[in-house]
């Protein structure tokens, strides 16, 4: 983006710019996936990149997710840095074996001789009114797998920097993009800024009464909840986790020790989700600081419902505030 140092961009545009810059910086970076070439991806994240970098670097793939990830492994073994696009979260499962058995274990199996620097981009989460398999939150499946690093961006600025950092990272990264944010809000991007390191969480709103932990699409929900709570005289601290594996607990623990309360919110099913892990770790580390049990607000333990009722399934401002109230009432 040498032509522009500051501009207001959507998350989709920011990711596109981040991918472009990564490809300019490193000729070994290439993109693979269904429809990523001429179409520019179903969400247009790779728009224009094939035109500028050619078909050898922006590779339209056959419709076979295991094949896309599996061949990307071979590319990485040959010294390339493939960035794979899985078209929708629910379509990642055909590639599950390649991701958890091959991508995740190649470094370990080879005793460090063949690490796999590659990125698997997954548009994730709901709220776009899609049919089934298009609105899932599979992050816990990957965060539970040793050998994978999992991150989720929540806004255009992070999208721009985090995708470049993920590509530059020496390990495989599952890169989660909140699809309903792609074209939602614009933010001013300054490409000369210094970003936070990739595997760090960030306090995005200061507060004193309760800590709300969120990532990806629920960061916006949490911020709205904090805004609403402020009107009622309650001060919520909001942390954007950004990295789901490894978890960056330092700002989380520091915050909970101050507020004495934590509410975790994510779109994924509550049972065995990231919230369970966060709750366990907070309890282990902050037991004597806690004024209330860690509470979780997430998707229910049902398959993702039909889109006409997905707003009831997804954690919204009111459910987060309800949890905050329950926490404060302890």
């Amino acid at each position, binding site marked *: 983006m040498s032509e522009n140092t500051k501009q207001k961009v959507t998350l989709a545009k920011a990711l596109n710019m981040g991918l472009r810059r990564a490809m300019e910086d490193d000729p070994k970076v290439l993109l693979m996936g269904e429809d990523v070439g001429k179409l520019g991806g179903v969400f247009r994240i790779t728009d224009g990149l094939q035109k500028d970098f050619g078909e*050898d670097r922006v590779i339209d793939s056959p419709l076979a997710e295991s094949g896309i990830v599996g061949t990307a492994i071979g590319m990485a073994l040959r010294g390339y840095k493939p960035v794979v696009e899985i078209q929708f979260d629910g379509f990642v499962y055909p590639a599950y074996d390649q991701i958890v058995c091959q991508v995740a274990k190649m470094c370990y199996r080879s005793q460090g001789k*063949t690490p796999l620097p590659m990125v698997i981009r997954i548009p994730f989460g709901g709220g776009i009114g899609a049919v089934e398999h298009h609105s899932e939150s599979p992050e816990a499946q990957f965060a539970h797998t040793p050998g994978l690093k999992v991150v989720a961006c929540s806004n255009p600025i992070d999208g721009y920097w985090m995708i470049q950092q993920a590509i530059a990272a020496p390990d495989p990264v599952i890169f989660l993009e909140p699809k309903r944010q792609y074209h939602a809000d614009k933010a001013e991007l300054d490409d000369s800024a210094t970003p936070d390191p990739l*595997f760090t969480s960030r306090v995005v709103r200061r507060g004193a009464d309760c800590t709300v932990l969120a990532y990806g699409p629920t960061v916006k929900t949490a911020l709205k909840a904090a805004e609403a709570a402020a009107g009622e005289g309650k001060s919520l601290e909001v942390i954007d986790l950004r990295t789901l594996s490894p978890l960056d607990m330092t700002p989380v623990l520091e915050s909970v020790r101050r507020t004495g309360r934590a509410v975790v919110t994510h779109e994924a099913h509550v049972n065995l989700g990231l919230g369970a892990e966060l709750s366990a770790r907070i309890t282990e580390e902050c037991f004597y600081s806690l004024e209330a049990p860690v509470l979780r607000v997430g998707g229910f333990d049902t398959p993702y419902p039909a889109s006409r009722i997905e707003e009831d399934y997804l954690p919204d401002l009111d459910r987060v505030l309800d949890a905050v109230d329950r926490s404060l009432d302890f």
Partner: protein
Amino acid sequence: MTQAGFGPDLAEVFGPAHQAHEAGGAPDLVQLLTPEGERVEHPDFSFGDGLSRDELAEQVRGFFRDMTLTRRIDVEATALQRHGELGIWAQLLGQEAAQIGAGRALRPQDYVFPTYREHGVAYCRGVDPLLLLGLFRGVDQGGWDPRANNFGLYTIVIGAQTLHATGYAMGMQRDGVVGTGDPDRDAAVVAHFGDGASSQGDVNEAFIFAASYNAPVVFFCQNNQWAISEPIERQTRIPLYQRALGFGFPGIRVDGNDVLATYAVTQAALQRARDGQGPTFVEAYTYRMGAHTTTDDPTRYRLSDDVERWKLKDPIARVEVYLKRNGLADQAFFDSVAAEADDLGHRLREGCKAMADPQPMSMFDHVFAEETEELRVQREGFASYLESFEGARA
């Protein structure tokens, strides 16, 4: 004639699925050396063209030595498993020609993605056989450096590596090492798998990717007739090599017990790939004389008659007969190979037993190229725990 009342008779369309089973030289089976040790010609593939008699003799003697040593690796490893030194072993007995023919057709710059039975190919690539044992003993998950010999680590999940091979071949295309005409530069990839793996989605996806991108990859299937207890009939209704047609690239069935033919066919397929003409499917028609692994009992599912019949097609015996009958090797040669095999066997026995267990703390190594703080904390916690015991290991 139709089958089950619809569709064409597959035997009419493709020929009997197992016509090569009995025949020495069925039309769709490339063979250059019969089980009786007789050289035969094939219209499309040849061995030894342009070689002097001495050069040819030297190469065939080399194959004999390679196969004999490979068999010894297998026999010793099987014995080591029986003595409790290995947790398990995947036997290759009977598949020596398929592996040596394929392995010797490689050039240094080619790259191999094996499954877990390619001990002969590993040997051809210069991987110390002792390193193969480490995986089966449980001291590591593959002790060799995949980049040192261009020989990947064994892949246990059936067929997953065929996609890695295809992607690697696509990388070679982008590196400009395909179709340049420079024999020292042009490279190709071999993906090894078995008849059972041919049923896997990944293998079929690899075929599609390879065909679609014209990737320089040779799919080398050792059809050893059995996927643990399931016969080839449970995997396919047509000869496997004919599947390649449906994906848009050539398929060839070669006598997998004929080292000259597997060498000639693989070399041609590799050259085709190196020249930029895309993938080839090679079906090496062979037989797994042993069990799937040492945990398996083949007497429960197959007839001893079949095994006896395949013994007559032994890949090593036919080369020995050929060398002897044509005066291409003297007794001193056979004695020296036998002595070398004994030495190798001795080295494997001693080396395997001497292999130390890894230190428990090593389990934390290389999970990532860049270790996480979470893992560092776990590592240190476990180290402290171990050190809390009296007389703890360092």
